[in-house]
């Protein structure tokens, strides 16, 4: 739970989507859906991909964010990070790299997510989630995509 001067943000974790039906009435409005992908495990990426199908398309207008951890790890095959980038770029969502092994890293990641969350919740005047996502969306440089000759 993060407190700012005038609003209270609550975060909840789920292993995969769809969320269980029984809590549906009492669930508060969801402002931001963050997919946290651990690059060291293949399963993490696959379950994130599978969960995407269950998300209402309205969320993709700026209310979805991808966070990857362990991007610097030498044991991660390069293809996995590229695959996540391509996925984030195709959905027009921002991609954040986070460091989860130190408390500093976790705090930094949380602060960056908070910035995105404030806009997605409509708390920042003159900025909407869709506008911000246009500025922060992940792009894949042309040398990663296969060239069409």
């Amino acid at each position, binding site marked *: 739970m993060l407190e700012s001067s005038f609003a209270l943000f609550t975060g909840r974790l789920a292993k995969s989507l769809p969320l269980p039906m029984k809590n549906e009435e009492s669930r508060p409005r969801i402002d931001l859906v963050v997919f946290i992908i651990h690059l*060291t*495990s*293949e*399963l*993490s990426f*696959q379950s994130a991909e599978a969960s995407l199908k269950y998300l209402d398309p309205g969320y993709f207008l700026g209310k979805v964010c991808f966070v990857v951890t*362990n*991007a*610097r*790890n*030498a*044991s*991660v*095959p*390069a*293809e996995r*990070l*590229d695959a996540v*980038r391509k996925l984030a770029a195709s959905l027009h969502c921002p991609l954040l790299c986070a*460091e989860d*092994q*130190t408390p*500093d*890293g976790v*705090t*930094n990641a949380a*602060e*960056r997510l908070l910035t995105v969350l404030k806009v997605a919740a409509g708390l920042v005047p003159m900025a909407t989630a869709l506008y911000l996502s246009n500025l922060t969306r992940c792009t894949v*440089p*042309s*040398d*990663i*995509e*296969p*060239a069409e000759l």
Partner: protein
Amino acid sequence: MERQSSVARTPLNSVLVQRRRRRSSSKNHRQSYRSCVGAASHLSYTPGLTTRRLTTSRRAPKSRTITEKVNPEQLSLLVRKEWQLSYVTPLCRFRHTRLKSYSRQLSAFLVADRQQGVAVEVEGPESSFKVSFCVVRGMAETDSDAETVLIQIHSKSWFAGQDEPQRLVWSGWLTCVNGSPDYLRSLPQDFVCLPLFCSSGAERLTSSVKSWFQRTFDCCFGPLEINSTNLQWLAALWTNCHPESNIQHLKLTWSLPVAPPLEVTCTVHPQDAWELWRSVREQPQEEKENGGGGGREEEGSVGIEEVTRFMKGLRSHFYRHFRLDLSAGGLKQVSTALGSAKHRGRIKISNSSYMSATLMLLTECALLKMPI
């Protein structure tokens, strides 16, 4: 509120950190390996129009009588020993003709190191080092590959007689097997590219040899890990050799990120592994025949989808029996009767017939990991 730094460092003792890659400067007229092959640096944007080409298919290794090309005595020094891998940047002004003088320089360097009190005593102060450099001809696959160089350090006690045998205390070799021809041709004249360095012996001697090389040839060494994708390639390529020479077992080790860390070793009977591999390879051929069109897949080439399907088959079999999803962890070790490979960068080749395919894969890893 004070702005915190937005970059957090990973504690180095817990994970292996990749070297940060620099942008390839446009002032370099020499092409970086990455712009030739097209593997984009994924931490910084590489300018220029290059395509990334993952190696999606490799030639399946065939039993080659490598003894025809390589001296069997030298070959026996290379097989059946576990080597620690590193990558080396191209060596400046290395001449294959000056190996004798290099041996003398290196043994003088080792003696000087020891006199400074820095070197660890392998045998005690009474022993001397005898270094020998020699060329192992025949390992190169293409014309642009440089010849492999083998370095051996023997130690002999001062007080021993002439006929007392010298003990091999350290050996290492530099090799380049089927390196990317574009990259090799783009190197300036003075440079020799031998990107794969294998060493076996005392760690202190390894670092002394590396520092001598760095001083003499202005190169850089670095650790080479074999990531899980390449371990999967090795598992599939070795299994592919089963009909020609029995692999005896296919042993795979995964490590799962639980507390305490769990290591799962799965030993597959060779016939089962072969059956699974054959069924994975037969599928696309059937589809192509049914489709009635398209080019035939080149005989003897293995694609990355086949490797992925093979590993997925093994993992789902494990899941069916043990309810444990191995894709949550990472593949750390592969071993068969033909050789074994560990994620940390250790390789052992037990059968010389399939050596070149393994070395080709490792050379490619080394070239990709090199920072220039």
